[in-house]
């Protein structure tokens, strides 16, 4: 494995146990992510985007039925680590996360600076309070927060500032991988654009690797080097951002792109009729087949992942036999 691959996920599965049966939230997802690159995971709500990163970060609820696969982080399979070892060595030290709506879950009675310093003090026994505060001031300026906000309480900050604070909290331990779960969807347009500028700068200057989860493909394009499309617990397409917007191959990706309204260009908008399948008993064949306009006989079987060139990988029967289009 080449050295600059930070994250290599192979056949990751995460199924939840519920009264109605097993929910296959993540079902056999594989991907690689190189250092300094950003992967945007897009898809409709309920397609397993958040479950995927929770499985990678091992932030799991109790009702787990299946949790399997391999997650190589810097070449080491961290799935073999015990929970305690993972907590001590990986989570927040090497991989940090900004959970969805985390800007609203800052502790209201603790000053911002103390909250941001917490992961530092927890993960590093030798760290003194003063040193930690120095580092907090450093990340504060990285995310573009004025230093006189250090001693404020969360309610004294606006939404955009609180979101920056949660990103500062993720960056404070200087992790190699940062997962951002819908970082900007609750923010206003201008605040959102400013935040994307901040993230872009961090990416360029510090070389941090990001996984960005979003349902907004327009925003994703600001940061993403690679795009992964998830549908019903599976990763149906993964490719470089360069090719994705104009040359997505999976019929679901095409439909998804056709449903995105654009400001600068006039196009006919389409929607995807029907609904995603239940993840409790998903179809055995292609999970998108029922809504697909290019469906054919083969789709009743589970499609293979096909490389259609320049690293674009599509899980679809249309491109079977070495990327050749059979039923276009």
């Amino acid at each position, binding site marked *: 494995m080449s050295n600059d691959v930070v994250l290599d996920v192979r056949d990751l599965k995460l199924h939840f146990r519920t009264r109605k049966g097993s929910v296959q939230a993540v079902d056999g997802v594989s991907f690689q992510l190189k250092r300094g690159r950003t992967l945007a995971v897009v898809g*409709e*709500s309920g397609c397993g985007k958040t479950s995927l990163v929770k499985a990678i970060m091992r932030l799991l609820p109790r009702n787990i039925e299946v949790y399997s696969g391999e997650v190589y982080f810097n070449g080491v399979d961290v799935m073999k680590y015990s929970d305690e070892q993972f907590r001590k060595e990986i989570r927040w030290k090497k991989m940090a996360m900004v959970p969805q709506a985390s800007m609203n879950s800052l502790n209201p009675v603790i000053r911002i600076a103390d909250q941001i310093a917490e992961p530092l003090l927890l993960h590093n026994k030798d760290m003194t309070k003063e040193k930690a505060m120095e580092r907090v001031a450093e990340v504060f300026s990285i995310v573009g927060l004025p230093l006189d906000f250090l001693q404020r309480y969360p309610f004294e900050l*606006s939404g*955009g500032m609180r979101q920056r604070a949660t990103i500062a909290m993720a960056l404070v331990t200087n992790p190699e991988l940062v997962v951002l779960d819908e970082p900007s969807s609750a923010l*206003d*347009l*201008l*605040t*959102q*654009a*400013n935040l*994307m*500028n901040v993230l*872009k*700068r961090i990416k360029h200057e510090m070389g941090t690797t990001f996984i960005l989860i979003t*349902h*907004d*493909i*327009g*925003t*994703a*394009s*600001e*940061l*993403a*080097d690679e795009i992964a499309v998830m549908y019903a617990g599976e990763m149906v397409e993964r490719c470089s*951002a*360069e090719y*994705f*917007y104009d040359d997505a191959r999976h019929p679901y990706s095409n*439909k*998804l*792109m056709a*449903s*995105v*309204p*654009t*400001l*600068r*260009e*006039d196009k006919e*908008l*389409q*929607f*995807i*009729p029907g*609904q995603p399948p239940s993840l409790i008993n998903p179809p055995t064949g292609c999970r998108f087949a029922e809504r697909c306009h290019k469906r054919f006989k083969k789709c009743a079987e589970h499609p293979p992942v096909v490389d259609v060139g320049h690293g674009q990988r599509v899980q679809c029967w249309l491109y079977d036999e070495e990327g050749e289009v059979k039923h276009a």
Partner: protein
Amino acid sequence: MPSTALKMQPETRQAMPILAVEDLHTWFEIRRMGFFKAGDVRALDGVSFELYAGETVSIVGESGCGKSTLAKTILGLHKPTKGKIYFEGKDLSELDKHQLKEYRAKVGYIQQDPYGALPSFMTVERILKEPMIINGITDKDEQKRRIRQVLEEVKLAPIEDFLPKFPHMLSGGQQQRLVIARAMILQPRLLIADEPVSMLDASVRVEILQLLQKLQYDHNLAIIYITHDLSTVRYFSERIFSMYGAKIIEKAATKSLLKNPLHPYTQALFEATSDPDAENLKTFKDVPTGEPPSLLNPPPGCRFHPRCRKMIKGLCDVEIPPEFQVTEDQSTACWLYKDHAQGK
């Protein structure tokens, strides 16, 4: 009707706007310790416009700019501090209780969060019956006929399957369609849609917008579409009003605005909206930093001036800009265009 409002209309329009809003102010009083007045939050500060039957107007702006207050004031949920609202030529403040009820039946409201807007303990059938019971449509057959008709219109089929369902049994898109059905059941003349698609997935959004468009066409409805998302606007409305700091700062035909936004704030909104494009990776967005103004203590002069790069010292920070008519279908409240004729 005020005479100034009539002069502005192109001849193709019907003579009377369905809705006319004149210098509308909605202020909320802030009290300290329960009864000392500590000031007003000027949520709506001098808004005027007209709306004609069969027309869609989009109101764009960020949260806190007063767009929802505008909607709620028009709906009669807030009492305006100053200014008038005319609906079909009648002044709302002069209506009695009974007439007000009639007015409310003619104005439909589509909320942002469909799940929050639907009572979780009522079935679909009951939810749709409720407005009819309140408005005195008691005939059982008429009720059934109307329920069937709106459900068909919003495409919740097969109807029989949906009637006994509770809101949590519907998907997000279906819930929003039920909200639309409820707004339509009293056969309104005006629909106010407050961020109707912002909680929905992209693939469903288009479906809901197309549905609204079809309803508008079929019923010659006027629609006020409130959104923060400029990119959906072009597919949906004829005119755009851009709001900032409790005021409308730009009014324009959608086509003109998308070609050439005038106000620096509208330009910033435009710049901040990303279309999917790999080129975005390479550039930074040129957007103003800072926060929208406090409406308790708005800055003097133009409310955007503290964030505006084209600010003219001694003018923008002193005097409130009036509306300038820059082109035939585009006007803006910005001192940069002071050489153009002043609008009304």
